[in-house]
């Protein structure tokens, strides 16, 4: 087994990975930008290397600087965390070419799943349900109208180059398609410099449900249940839970089998996530995408299974079997994760700042993965995630109670924070009932 692991990330995830590396008796190397020098993960690593200025392109996304840090410190393996270089297939290849161990799937698997259209075709061929949609961009209105006959209404008109919910519109019939197509095409051209438009089946009420998979060193792929990530603002997750209140044993069996087939279609190794949309009206699910890395919300899966997913990633990367027996592993209880972000609780606008007060909740069934501490500064250069409050209970009601208590106990001042949103959500009858969809946050703010 390798003895030194470089963690090519920052904040809460770097700290969390470093903890497992050290618990396994290995040495952890941190890398950091100039503005992150004072963060807890830098202090807690066995060695830390400054790799550049604040801008991610010059530090955390700078492959050459990260590889040079590995060379300087004698690191033999690189764990990318999530974001930054985690899904950069060229970087995965460079790591391997440098004679280091990449803690993640093969460069080829990352590349295959990174191209959304190719991924969709791959998993469809493996028997995984996908939504109806155009396989390539639609060039003009006549082509759009023709394609729409095969997809059916309502459908989503979206900019091929878009993302984050921008450049999208719903068309309920052909007349609306005619109006929306030109609007979206014009917007896409002005915004992204690329007027290509895609058409997709539109689901009025969906939940975002994803399956955690782990490709073992012996080539088998095992699934570790699902996570429901339907509490979102601006198409970004705020709260995740497992099991999903909307998934029963039969549906779970189907989703897990589909996720394993999707991962097997690219010879997947290590931790990955197969994201699906679940149509609340029909109970049907379709493949959305596969994230070829550790997910922000992985702790809920860890709590109900009693395993450490980062440890499994490191074991798989070292060619070893996992720490658990996949044939007998069963989840227990219910877990919920709340993302504590530096943003206001009403409009979710970012508000960085220096932390003047920071007291994390604790107690039975409460885990906090935090990237900051009192005296450190949340800067505008990176995402707004400050900490994840993760609770585990014997059932959903107990998990909700523990989440309410944990949110009330969290003392935080300096940057803006969305703790008040979480307190509100945990009392919202729709969330408490479990009967909610991705429209919940918008409905709470309507």
């Amino acid at each position, binding site marked *: 087994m390798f003895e030194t692991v470089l963690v090519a990330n920052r904040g809460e995830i770097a700290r969390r990975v470093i903890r497992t590396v050290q618990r396994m008796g290995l040495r952890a190397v941190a890398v950091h930008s100039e503005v992150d020098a004072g963060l807890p993960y830098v202090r807690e690593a066995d060695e830390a290397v400054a790799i550049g200025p604040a801008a991610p392109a010059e530090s955390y996304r700078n492959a050459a600087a990260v590889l040079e840090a590995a060379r300087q410190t004698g690191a033999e393996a690189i764990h990318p965390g999530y974001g930054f270089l985690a899904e950069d297939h060229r970087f995965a290849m460079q790591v391997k070419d440098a004679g280091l161990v990449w803690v993640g799937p093969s460069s080829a698997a990352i590349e295959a799943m990174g191209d959304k259209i190719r991924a969709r075709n791959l998993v469809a061929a493996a028997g995984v349900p996908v939504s109806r949609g155009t396989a390539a961009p639609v060039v003009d209105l006549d082509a759009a109208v023709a394609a729409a006959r095969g997809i059916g209404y309502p459908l989503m008109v979206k900019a091929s180059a878009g993302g984050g919910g*921008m450049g999208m519109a719903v068309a309920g019939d052909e007349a609306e398609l005619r109006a929306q197509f030109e609007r979206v095409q014009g917007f896409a051209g*002005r915004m992204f410099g690329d007027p290509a438009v895609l058409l997709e089946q539109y689901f009025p009420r969906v939940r975002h449900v994803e399956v955690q998979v782990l490709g073992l060193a012996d080539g088998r792929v095992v699934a570790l249940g699902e996570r429901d990530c339907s509490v979102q603002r*601006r198409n970004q997750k705020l709260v995740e839970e497992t099991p999903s209140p909307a998934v029963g044993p039969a549906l779970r069996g189907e989703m897990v089998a589909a996720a394993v087939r999707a991962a097997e279609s690219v010879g997947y190794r290590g931790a990955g996530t197969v994201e699906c949309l679940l149509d609340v009206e029909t109970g049907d699910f379709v493949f959305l995408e596969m994230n070829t890395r550790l997910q922000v919300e992985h702790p809920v899966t860890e709590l109900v299974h009693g395993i450490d997913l980062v440890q499994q990633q490191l074991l798989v990367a070292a060619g070893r079997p996992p720490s658990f027996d996949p044939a007998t592993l069963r989840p227990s209880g219910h877990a919920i994760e709340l993302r504590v972000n530096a*943003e206001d609780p009403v409009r979710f*606008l970012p508000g960085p700042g220096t932390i003047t007060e920071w007291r994390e909740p604790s107690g039975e069934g409460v885990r906090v993965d935090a990237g900051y501490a009192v005296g450190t500064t949340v800067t*505008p250069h990176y995402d707004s995630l400050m900490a994840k409050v993760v609770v585990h209970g014997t059932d959903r009601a107990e998990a909700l109670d523990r989440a309410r208590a944990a949110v009330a106990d969290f003392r935080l001042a300096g940057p803006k924070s969305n703790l008040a949103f979480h307190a509100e959500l945990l009392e919202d009858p729709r969330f408490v009932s479990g009967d909610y969809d991705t429209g919940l946050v918008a409905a709470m703010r309507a």
Partner: protein
Amino acid sequence: MANEIRAEMVANVWKVVVSQGDSVADGDTLVILESMKMEIPVLAEAAGTITALHVGEGDVVQEGDVIAEIG
């Protein structure tokens, strides 16, 4: 009456969607700001014509800075 659209936070100007002289409808996206990896669209608060545009892509705006004026 001119309507001043101001930045609500410190941010980078990621995209400028409109040009001076464009007519816009209430709710149209004028520029998109970026802060903390979030894209924050800045919307027109009234219909009218863009009479002044005070930012360019790559600029940094402070809270309260005027981004555009709609007349």
